[in-house]
């Protein structure tokens, strides 16, 4: 019916005994080869969605289609999906190669073809030399890779990853992030992964779905989500922001409480109340003028390339990320002026006054 590879429609899950649904009318569609991230705070229903797609739990209502075919009634072991669990779930009584071969064995792949396939999968995740090891003798990162090889060797229609990196230390996480992304684009497998780490979602996914309380708040490319968040929740969840609300006094201009006039580039009717946001990195040091706020530096955090500072203006805090190569840097207590171009002000919502 469409060229979409995976289609999820109005998926609902209410756990027995629960008053409110854990997943509430979730819909999205994925073209072949795309990587979608489900991002949201703990308990918002990400794992529940993944497990419904996998067939490990039954949806209360809604449809899941793979290649245009409804699969809600297909049992788990016939769905041909790969899953990487948060705790890896490697079989402790088998070797690394045994774990990877398991799926092929279940598919009745003859022994002679199994060996080379397993070896290729292990080579892909750089575990080629460890096939005979017991999985209990692998490091965290190696277990992770073994789990990925095991889920990919069966050439799944869809790869599902549930917080695949959360058990790894920061350095390994960055490495595996690139590696998973690389493997995914090389194999061209369609993938959905769950995370509550915004950096992970922004850097790995082709598109991301930001969730809250069982609902998808916004779905789009990382860029769209970051630069044009649909609402305050999305804006606040992805990246930091200075949220400013005020009344529109003239086309493209609002009076912000405590700060004064701010020009922005979005249509909003005069007299209405608007919610605006300025990302910290959009502020620049400038001379006093329009769209600029002057205040005293209250705190400074030096982060190498970036200097994060907070100033107080009219009783409120504004935070800014400044590039450290931009001339002399302000010190604590200095009076500085932060300016933002009207085009860099994010318009979030408008309500009649």
């Amino acid at each position, binding site marked *: 019916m469409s060229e979409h590879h995976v289609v999820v429609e109005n998926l609902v899950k209410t756990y027995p005994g629960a008053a409110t649904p854990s997943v509430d009318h979730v819909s999205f569609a994925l073209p072949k080869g795309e990587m979608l991230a489900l991002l949201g705070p703990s308990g918002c229903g990400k794992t529940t969605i993944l497990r419904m797609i996998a067939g490990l739990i039954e949806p209360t209502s809604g449809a899941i289609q793979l290649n245009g075919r409804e699969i809600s009634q297909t049992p788990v072991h016939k769905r041909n999906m790969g899953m990487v669990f948060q705790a890896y*779930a490697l079989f402790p009584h088998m070797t690394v190669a045994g774990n990877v071969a398991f799926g092929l064995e279940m598919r009745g792949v003859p022994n002679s073809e199994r060996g080379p396939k397993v070896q290729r999968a292990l080579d892909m995740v750089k575990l080629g030399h460890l096939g005979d090891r017991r999985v209990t003798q692998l490091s965290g990162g190696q277990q992770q890779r073994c789990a990925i090889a095991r889920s990919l060797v069966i050439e799944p229609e869809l790869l599902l990853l549930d917080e695949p990196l959360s058990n790894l230390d920061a350095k390994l996480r960055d490495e595996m992030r690139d590696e998973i992304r690389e493997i995914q684009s090389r194999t061209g497998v369609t993938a959905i992964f769950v995370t509550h780490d915004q950096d992970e979602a922004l850097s790995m996914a082709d598109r991301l779905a930001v969730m809250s309380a069982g609902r998808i708040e916004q779905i789009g490319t990382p860029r769209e989500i970051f630069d044009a968040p649909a609402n305050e929740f999305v804006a606040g969840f992805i990246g930091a922001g200075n949220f400013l609300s005020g009344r529109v006094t003239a086309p493209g201009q609002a009076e912000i409480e405590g700060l004064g006039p701010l020009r922005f580039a979005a249509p909003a009717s005069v007299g209405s109340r608007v919610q605006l946001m300025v990302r910290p990195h959009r502020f620049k040091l400038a001379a006093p003028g329009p769209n600029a706020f002057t205040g005293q530096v209250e705190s400074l955090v030096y982060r190498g390339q970036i200097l994060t500072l907070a100033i107080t203006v009219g009783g409120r805090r504004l935070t800014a990320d400044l590039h450290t190569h931009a001339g002399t840097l302000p010190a604590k207590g200095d009076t500085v002026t932060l300016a933002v171009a009207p085009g860099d002000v994010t318009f979030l919502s408008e309500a009649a006054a």
Partner: protein
Amino acid sequence: MSGAAAPAQQMTGSNRYMLLILLVPGLLALMTTFLLPMVWLARASFSTSSMSAFGGGVTLEHYHAALTDPFYWKVAMNTLSLGVTVSFFAVILSYPIALFLTRSTSRWRGVLTALAVAPLLTSAVVRTYGWMVILGDRGVINSTLQSLSLTTDPVRLSNNTFGATVALVEILMPYAILAMLAGFGRLNPQLEEAASMLGASKLRVFWRIILPLSLPGILTGALLVFVLAISAFVTPRLMGGGRVFVLGTEVFQEATVTLNWPLAAALSVVLLALFSSVIVIYQRALRRLEA
């Protein structure tokens, strides 16, 4: 050995002293209740005097008697076969129960587990009498069969190996269940999910994942039941009605009826040797499984 010694070497002198003091009560208790009787038993089995362990000279005649008399060989074989049969059936019957209790997510799980091992609250003697009431010639089963005119003569269900086996299986099942529950630590529902995602049907998940991972628990349960079954005395004696000869009943016979203590001691030592070798072989196998 070196691995175990390493932490001890790091201990400071006073720590080691403390450790020794803490171990003393336990060691003393073990000495008096286990080690001394063992020494006494071993000495008695070589004694020429029939009533006192340390009196009389040393002789091998009781071992000679125990090991050359075909009757005792038959008794040993009986004991082994009873042990194997009882552990086989106790494990087969306990496994589904233990598996269910481990995997259940119901809030009644704790209650059910307690119920499964509740029979341990009554003594084996009481439960054996219970089985006599059920399986006896005038017991529940036979009187039912007769009142329905299905049989005229009672069906022999007790006073034989069958009765002893049935009663022992039931009496030892709670031990098997407990041992299995303790040995099922590697079972993990997520592994089953992973296997079915990889294409394994329910049946294959059981054969390839659940069974191998629960094998250590099964083997521990089997070992425990086996050891308890071959050393059992009350149940084979009561349910066997004097017609079931196992090492436990024979030791009792020699010690209290024939009053041949050295022979009873020699038989006990043979029984002990049997135990220990089974346990050693078993633990080897278990360790290999868990490696």
